[in-house]
């Protein structure tokens, strides 16, 4: 089993890393690149704590091999706010303001899914918001504040109150 060399773009920067053939994207991010915002919960696609964007689509990074990321663009929670005022995505801001966080372990993944959901479906009502973040589990909050925060961010973006910086 020989190491492999993977080159990809992470949060706008080109990076290269040595990996094992069985390493996941999650392991690459956390242990080779030190980006520990992305969490490992189940390691099996159930909990969404490891959610990142790969070529613009939300994926569970625990179910992608690092070797599959050659030449791909990955965005993690550390890079989500790039281009937004104060470097915070509207969903991040809304979570901070509403205190929609308890232990916080699930939150990076939930924010990634929520950001994806409101970007694609700025008209999503609560039922649809729930469907779009159904791949993320939270063991603490009971979700009410999480959905309130997501809807706050959705409405602010829809009303044009917050825009990406030019």
């Amino acid at each position, binding site marked *: 089993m020989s190491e492999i060399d993977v080159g990809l773009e992470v949060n706008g920067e080109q990076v290269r890393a040595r990996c094992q053939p069985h390493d996941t994207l999650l392991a690459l991010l956390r242990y080779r690149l030190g980006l520990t915002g992305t969490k490992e919960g189940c390691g099996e696609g159930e909990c969404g704590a490891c959610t990142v964007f790969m070529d613009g689509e939300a994926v569970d990074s625990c179910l992608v091999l690092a070797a599959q990321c050659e030449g791909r663009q990955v965005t993690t929670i550390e890079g989500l706010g790039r281009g937004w005022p104060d470097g915070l995505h509207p969903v991040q801001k809304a979570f901070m303001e509403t205190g929609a966080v308890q232990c916080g372990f699930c939150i990076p993944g939930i924010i990634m899914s929520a950001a994806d959901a409101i970007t694609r479906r700025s008209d999503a009502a609560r039922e649809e918001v729930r469907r779009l973040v159904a*791949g993320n589990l939270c063991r603490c909050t009971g979700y009410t504040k999480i959905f309130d925060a997501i809807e706050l961010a959705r409405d602010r973006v829809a009303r044009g109150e917050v825009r990406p910086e030019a």
Partner: protein
Amino acid sequence: MIGTVQRILRPKSVDELLSTLAELQGPRHLLAGGTDILVKAKDGKVAPGTWIDVWPLDELRGVTAHDDRIDLGANVTMTDVERSPLLRAEARALWDACYEAGAVQIRNRATLGGNVANASPAGDSIPALYSLGATVHLRSVRGERAVPIEALFTGPGKTVIAPDEAIVRLSLPRVRGAVGAFLRLGQRKAQAISKVSAAATATLGADLTVEAARVALGAVAPTVVRAPEVERLLAGRALEPGLMAEAGELAASGVTPITDVRSTKVYRREMVAVVVRRALASLVDRRRG
């Protein structure tokens, strides 16, 4: 997981994939979205060997409409299906199955080729593909062959796909005016493997007379199965509530499900009646528009 991926190959074309498969010795595993095989590998259920990444092969992507059929590349994802107005209009059972499956992160990676090759009796696209009369196209350096989806599976996780073959595409016959539906029951709405599922695709006359119907059931036998006795019952009759209930009961009496980690045989049999009845009711709603 460590040791399972002895090396990983990334062919640049389908031809290169096929010649690689032809020359390789020993265990080999195609890797598409990875949402089944990586979970299995982490559970120690994948033999150590060579992994071959097919995800980047754009030749295997794409939904193409022809006069008589719709072709779906093996790498078409559940999200691709969900975003296709053509498939929502003409292959509604498949669209429903992909809309209901997993969650966003899973659907973004879950390919139809992977769902079919994984050969789970609970794989959600499979009953839908049965109901649509899908054909699976397998290719190797020896050539291409077309296998009706119902002839592909020999048991749970087992198919007639040879070690040097790959699924390249699925094709669905285009049937003017057909309506379809897929329904499933699981532990919860998202992320749950189906305890029982049903798909139906039919052409209905103006008075709701069943001109032709295919009904398939998931998670109640070692493979997905058709329900031919139900199809015979429905043929030529108007789909009204009494007939739908009768069809459900007949479907339930025709299956011998098992008890496993996800459900019991009693629950499964009872619920077959429910999902079949509801799927047929959806056909009527959709026919009426």
